[in-house]
């Protein structure tokens, strides 16, 4: 009996199409959770894997530290993996879900709570207490790490450095225009306007409208309003009328004193735009210092802390994420991994790294290094941190929803505000609503 040559005509293509379409379903397929898997102390020798959470920018500094470490501990080899900063949280989440976590990783407080919630990190307080680092870490950074972990006084990363919002400005352009440094908000807005001549491709300021825009906008809001607490009871102060007024002034700069293209600016584009030479001021943290010096030289650029809300008044700065090193629970050679963390946080290595990163070192011994005196913006940042008139607004990094709310949920809304499709008040109210809900959820869980 002859076999049929063809199946029904629609069945085959439909099956093929179904399979092709099914590929879409693989996008969010999740593997078995790898979180919470406990490794072991190991022999203290052999290979460990280290993920740098800002690969590329700081790779050279890490290579030097690793070389020095391997010289001191010839029985331990460190495999360096540089992860781009924009992808680091996704990489960690993927590895936590599917396996493949490193032994040691760079961890910032902005996403520390997420990783603690997933039970991926080893508590470090005991190890720090027994190490040479005890009493040698900047207190503010220690409390920042404790708060961000959301588990009382326990520390889930060893702080290595902190950053601070800085107002970068071109001293040569200011001098040529007869402007004073932007040490007050009125001077800042005046300079933004004076330095702008769109017909000649000159702009007073560059705004961050793309990825990472929210933390920066919040920094500008609190610095101008002078509100020194993120919470008023269990409600956030984000939508306080003074903050809304500050936001209106800030977004008012868009297209008036900034390029239109700023709408999509992430930090890379924003810094590149400033360093291209057509922009007078930029608000970014200390981390871009070396880029600016490379672009203009030390004499044509300077950085100062954001001005106080009123002349001579209290300076309110937000808690920038503290960077640090985490020890992963799943690691099978924790003894060797901890040696590496301890070594990297030691005074000479922490100093070397902080200088390369343009950050404030966490090791108190490194604070006295000469390079800090030579780097004006870093010195100014440290002075402002130690100034009794400075108040630090602690962002709720401990909220597992913090990153989701301030990135995926809210960044498109901020672009709507810049485009005039949403008012600053509606934006602030919506953001505040999400934060209040997240806080209530977290508080309910903590009970």
């Amino acid at each position: 009996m002859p076999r049929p040559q063809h199946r029904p005509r629609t069945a085959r293509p439909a099956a093929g199409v179904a399979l092709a379409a099914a590929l879409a379903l693989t996008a969010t397929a999740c593997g078995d959770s790898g979180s919470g898997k406990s490794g072991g102390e190991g022999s203290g020798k052999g290979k460990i894997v280290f993920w740098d959470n800002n690969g590329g920018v700081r790779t050279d500094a890490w290579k030097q530290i690793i070389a020095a470490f391997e010289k001191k501990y010839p029985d331990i080899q460190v495999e360096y993996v540089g992860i781009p900063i924009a992808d680091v949280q996704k990489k960690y989440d993927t590895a936590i879900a599917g396996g493949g976590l490193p032994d040691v990783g760079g961890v910032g407080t902005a996403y520390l709570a997420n990783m603690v919630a997933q039970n991926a990190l080893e508590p470090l307080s005991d190890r720090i207490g027994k190490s040479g680092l005890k009493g040698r870490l900047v207190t503010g950074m220690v409390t920042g790490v404790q708060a961000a972990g959301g588990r009382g006084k326990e520390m889930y990363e060893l702080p290595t450095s902190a950053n601070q919002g800085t107002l970068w400005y071109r001293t040569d352009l200011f001098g040529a225009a007869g402007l004073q440094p932007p040490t007050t908000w009125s001077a800042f807005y005046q300079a933004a306007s004076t330095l702008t001549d769109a017909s000649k491709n000159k702009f007073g300021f560059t705004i961050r409208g793309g990825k990472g825009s929210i933390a920066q906008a919040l920094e500008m809001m609190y610095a101008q309003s002078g509100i020194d607490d993120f919470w008023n009871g269990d409600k956030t102060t984000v939508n306080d009328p003074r903050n809304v007024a500050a936001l209106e002034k800030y977004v008012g700069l868009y297209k008036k004193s900034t390029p239109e293209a700023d709408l999509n600016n992430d930090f890379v584009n924003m810094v590149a735009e400033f360093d291209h030479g057509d922009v007078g001021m930029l608000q970014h943290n200390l981390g871009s210092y070396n880029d600016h010096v490379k672009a203009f030289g030390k004499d044509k650029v300077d950085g100062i802390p954001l001005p106080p809300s009123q002349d001579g008044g209290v300076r309110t700065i937000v808690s920038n994420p503290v960077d640090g090193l985490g020890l992963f629970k799943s690691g099978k050679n924790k003894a060797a991994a901890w040696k590496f963390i301890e070594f990297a946080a030691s005074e000479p290595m922490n100093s070397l790294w902080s200088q390369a990163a343009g950050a404030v070192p966490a090791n108190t011994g490194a604070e006295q290094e000469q390079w800090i005196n030579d780097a004006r913006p870093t010195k100014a940042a440290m002075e402002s941190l130690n100034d009794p008139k400075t108040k630090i607004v602690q962002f709720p990094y401990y909220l597992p929803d913090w990153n989701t709310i301030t990135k995926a949920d809210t960044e498109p809304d901020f672009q709507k505000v810049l485009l005039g499709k949403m008012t600053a008040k509606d934006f602030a109210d919506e953001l505040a609503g999400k934060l209040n809900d997240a806080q209530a959820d977290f508080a309910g869980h903590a009970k």
Partner: protein
Amino acid sequence: MAIAVAKHPVTNRRRRTRRLPYLLIAPAALLMLAFIAYPMISVLYYSLQDYNVTKPWRNGFAGMSNFTRIFTGDPRFWHSLDFSVRWVVVEIALQLVIGLALALLVNQTFVGRGLSRALVFSPWAVSGVLTTTIWMLLYNPSTGMSRYLADAGIGSYGHSVLSDPHTVFWAAVLAELWRGVPFFAILLLADLQSIPGELYEAASVDGASRLRQLFHITLPHLKDAIVLSTLLRAVWEFNNVDLLYTLTGGGPAGQTTTLPLYVANTGLDGHDFGYASALTTVAFVILLFFSVLYLRLSKFGGDRT
């Protein structure tokens, strides 16, 4: 007894012959189970769960609540679906028309045809991220076209077509066209070359114009290739993530967020894998329904016997 002994080898051979096809398809079947069936079932499972890796205390069976949220309380879903549909329709229509025109052109005999074909097909060989990088440089207000235009007195400095809500859609369409047109051109050219020349000769003898030959010989012959290529491309364009993610990030203000991009943001940035799985399931059903409907309406393969 002697008969029974004689029968055994035959039975074993038959059994082996019967098993052989299954053994041969087993590797492919296992791979499909692992890489297609498992992820599908996994996504379907998670679509019925609250599953957020950063809030494990909330995780658990959610029933249909993720789907209820999609259809009744999520304007971003409808916006991203609306954009996806517009994106697919515009892209496929333009890619097909331009791809067909180019295929007809390079199917002619002329000096430099080989070079022309290479130029037409070359964008297809460029990776998605590289394509985006090329277009980002072109659109960059500091280094790209707009700066040179502004230098020449056309337009203004600092203007970016990717930041302007009025131009971002067509700027993205143009970049994707550059990449997508060669796909149609290659596929249609291959099918064009299988049309017997005698048909055109006979039509010419009968006095048919070039336009009439196009509609009565070329297009009917290309029908199956057009149906298949538009369907494949429509699915790919619907699922497009790389170009839009790197070119616009779904912005400004979510204006270029396709449904898969929304899924990626919800899952990877928002960590809400349960809801992202439900969105993916909805996208899957939409694509499946569209594909079956399209194949039925176009009577794909209907001329074959």
